[in-house]
């Protein structure tokens, strides 16, 4: 076991992927709680499709992938929020429109420029994709996400729990919604390369849902979600290394397994509680 870990971490690319992945899992788990509770679970999915489009365009025009993807995804995040505030198009419909359009644009660009080999790694992630420069940028972005989240924690809780009340008592809800969208966009961008555009949204949704099964306080949901996400990423990565399976997919499967376990714990626990009452 320890030999395997030692061997695994002797590769530089694995260390890079591990650092980026750990930070992304943590960011995604923190934001995920808010997004799931605000009924924005699919926003991660929509944004990652936009990310795919941006990466494909960047690759075919020989531009640096992250520098194109970051502004595009941030812009898409704002657009999605605006669209869902205007009740003419529902939030879920807005996400469906934007994500399928972006996916289509991406696929067309990839096929025109003829770099088909990369398509798979964009969609499902590749552990080899992170360069050292990427890793540094990811680390900086992730630290920013975590610090901003900690600073605004109480306000984020208030806006998530009851937006109207917060607005009526003078909290700038628009600002906090923008902050949340911005942080989500950044998290998606940095996680996309390892996890893949189709799988990154799992990192946002699963830890939050799992911890909401058993935790009763907002703070414990957040902490539990972060810890679960970190553990799942670590286990998923080791599994992927030892069984030679794709990293992103392995991490998602571990997350899904954790969710099922927590679900069962919740069911058993409430049954026991009911019987004790009788």
């Amino acid at each position, binding site marked *: 076991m320890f030999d395997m870990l030692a061997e695994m971490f002797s590769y530089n690319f694995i260390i890079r992927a591990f650092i980026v992945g750990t930070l992304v899992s943590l960011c995604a788990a923190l934001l995920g709680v808010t997004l799931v509770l605000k009924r924005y679970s699919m926003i991660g999915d929509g944004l990652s499709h936009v990310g795919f489009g941006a990466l494909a365009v960047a690759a075919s025009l020989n531009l640096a992938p992250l520098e194109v993807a970051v502004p595009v995804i941030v812009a898409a995040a704002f657009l999605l929020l605006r669209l869902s505030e205007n009740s003419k198009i529902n939030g879920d419909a807005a996400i469906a429109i934007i994500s399928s359009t972006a996916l289509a644009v991406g696929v067309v660009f990839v096929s025109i420029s003829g770099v088909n080999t990369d398509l798979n790694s964009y969609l499902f992630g590749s552990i080899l994709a992170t360069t050292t420069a990427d890793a540094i940028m990811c680390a900086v972005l992730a630290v920013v996400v975590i610090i901003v989240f900690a600073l605004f924690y109480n306000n984020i*809780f208030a806006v998530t729990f009851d937006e109207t*009340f917060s607005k009526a*008592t003078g909290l700038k809800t628009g600002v906090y919604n923008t902050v949340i969208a911005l942080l989500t966009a950044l998290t998606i961008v940095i996680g996309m390369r390892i996890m893949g555009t189709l799988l990154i949204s799992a990192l946002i949704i699963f830890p939050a849902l799992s911890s909401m099964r058993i935790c009763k306080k907002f703070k414990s949901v957040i902490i539990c979600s972060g810890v679960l996400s970190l553990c799942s990423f670590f286990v998923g990565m080791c599994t992927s290394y030892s069984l030679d399976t794709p990293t992103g997919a392995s991490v998602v499967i571990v997350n899904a397994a954790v969710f099922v376990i927590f679900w069962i714990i919740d069911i058993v626990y409430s049954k026991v509680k009911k019987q004790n009452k009788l």
Partner: protein
Amino acid sequence: MALITIDNASMGYDGKTVLSNLSLNIYEKDYVCIVGENGSGKTTLMKCLLGLIQPIKGVISFGDGLKQSEIGYLPQQTLIQKDFPASVSEVVISGCLNKKHTMFYSKQQKETAARNMELTGVYKLRKKCFRELSGGQRQRVMLARSLCATQKLLILDEPVTGLDPMATADMYTLIKNLNSKGITIIMVSHDVNSAVSNASKILHLSRNNYFYGTAHQYLHSDLGKKFILSDCPCDDCRHRAKAGAHNV
């Protein structure tokens, strides 16, 4: 001086005017009930008072040092809150955020939250999960939160919707108590009979028309007569009822 002065204001949303030429004063320690049919503009007026929307015409001004951000507001519960994982004390203290805020809640804010939980009788539940409470308990928690945001004025949006008769009576007693402690109450309600027996003043909104006066005056007004099914207990009315008048 009046706590709230509405001067010849028109209000509406999406370019539609639902209330026009409304003028009234609300004084400290008033207990005002806003009643009226669906679509008569109760919610629109409330949103204007809270500053969520601006009046189309005219002004709403606050006196006695009341700031718009210092109005306690009890909204109707949303779908999101039904399965929200948060403890009672987390919910209540989030009402303090309109005061000066640093990264952590101050000792003073924690004391305010505890005091208001005592006041609404949910202090014992403070470590419980919000989603596991009964409807009446949840409403008390939300009331404690709105008290954290204010010392002067509470605006309540249909506070007894979905509560059983016992919880409804408890809620009305609680609101009455708060009012007697000096907090001005503005309540939007569909429950006209309770409004008349609890509130000191009634604002009845109707299309192109409104009534604002004491509960007793309301029972004798044209709008009130249409809306109230029970009799007014005053001598004048009993006399008329005996003489065969209906629906007085």
